[in-house]
């Protein structure tokens, strides 16, 4: 019998201290692998943006790429919020780029370098939760700033009979409060699910190669083909999740700016 291979698919989401001590009572300011990968994401976005912000009269390929992304976000806000949407381009663009690059960084095959473990920043609920809370705070602040207490009319669809209002207002209120939660949960669970799937089938490859007989390598081959397909799907999911986060943020801001 080959050795029982036990691969823990959750280990990749573990936060390790690179410098400092994570144990109880130690300083909370610890440089973790999560912080390291956030810095890597920041550096990547920075390099990407700096390369395209030279304001050349005839844009090169790089500048066209940067302008494509900014134009994409700007047109999304224009379509969803209207002319006032331009004010919110900085936050939506920031969060879109950060999520997109963080998701893609987690999918990059850095693991082939010995000792390097890629870490998906967005697979932690704390990270996505903070981004969702900032989006939700923008909605609340803008809504109360512009409309005052009239902002509460967001929960009352116009033209509803009084009896229905008793039912609809609590439902709208709860669905409004759930928004930041669902925004954060969607991103982090989507990232976790994909990575666990890849890791589980990766353990099938190893287990199949260790197994005796003819069927083991066959299972490994099948798992490998499956992983290639899933990885392609995951790259798509990375982009879709970043897009969905930005899109829902812009829709929620639209509620605050225009009140239905």
């Amino acid at each position, binding site marked *: 019998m080959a050795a029982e291979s036990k691969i823990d698919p*959750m280990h990749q989401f573990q936060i390790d201290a690179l410098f400092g001590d994570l144990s109880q009572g130690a300083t909370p300011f610890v440089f973790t692998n999560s912080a390291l990968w956030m810095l890597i994401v920041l550096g990547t976005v920075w390099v990407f943006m700096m390369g395209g912000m030279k304001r050349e009269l005839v844009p090169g390929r790089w500048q066209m790429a940067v302008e494509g992304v900014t134009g994409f976000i700007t047109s*999304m806000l224009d*379509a*969803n919020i209207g002319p006032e949407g331009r004010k919110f381009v900085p936050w939506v663009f920031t969060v879109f780029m950060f999520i997109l690059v963080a998701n893609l960084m987690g999918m990059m095959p850095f693991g082939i370098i010995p000792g390097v473990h890629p870490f998906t920043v967005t697979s932690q609920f704390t990270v996505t939760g903070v981004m969702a809370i900032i989006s939700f705070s923008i909605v609340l602040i803008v809504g109360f700033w512009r409309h005052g207490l009239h902002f509460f009319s967001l929960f009352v669809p116009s033209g509803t009979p009084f009896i229905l209002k008793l039912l609809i207002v609590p439902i709208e209120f709860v669905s409004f409060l759930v928004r930041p939660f*669902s925004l954060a*949960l*969607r991103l982090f*669970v*989507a990232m*976790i*699910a994909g990575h*666990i799937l890849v890791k589980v089938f990766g353990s099938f490859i190893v287990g199949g190669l260790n197994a005796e007989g003819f069927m083991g390598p066959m299972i490994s081959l099948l798992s490998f083909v499956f992983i290639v397909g899933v990885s392609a799907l995951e790259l798509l999911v990375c982009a*879709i999740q970043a*897009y*969905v986060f930005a*899109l*829902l943020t812009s*829709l929620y801001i639209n509620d605050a700016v225009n009140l239905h």
Partner: protein
Amino acid sequence: MSISLEAAKVIGAGLAAIGVGAAAAGVGIVFGSFLQGALRNPAAADSQQGRLFIGFASAELLGLIAFAVAMIILYAV
């Protein structure tokens, strides 16, 4: 008949996985209906892409919650 907690956990996680399949059907309906509409009126399709992804996101969220429940049952209970 009694089963151990370990076995009950695995059974519960498996039951929670049914929800993921249901969400798969939902996502399929979203994209299928979009394609049906888009092929009938291709000119209007591009302007509805935002709504497509809103529908996709809300259908997908429920499947992801089912997945999260399965993970909580398996690893956190």
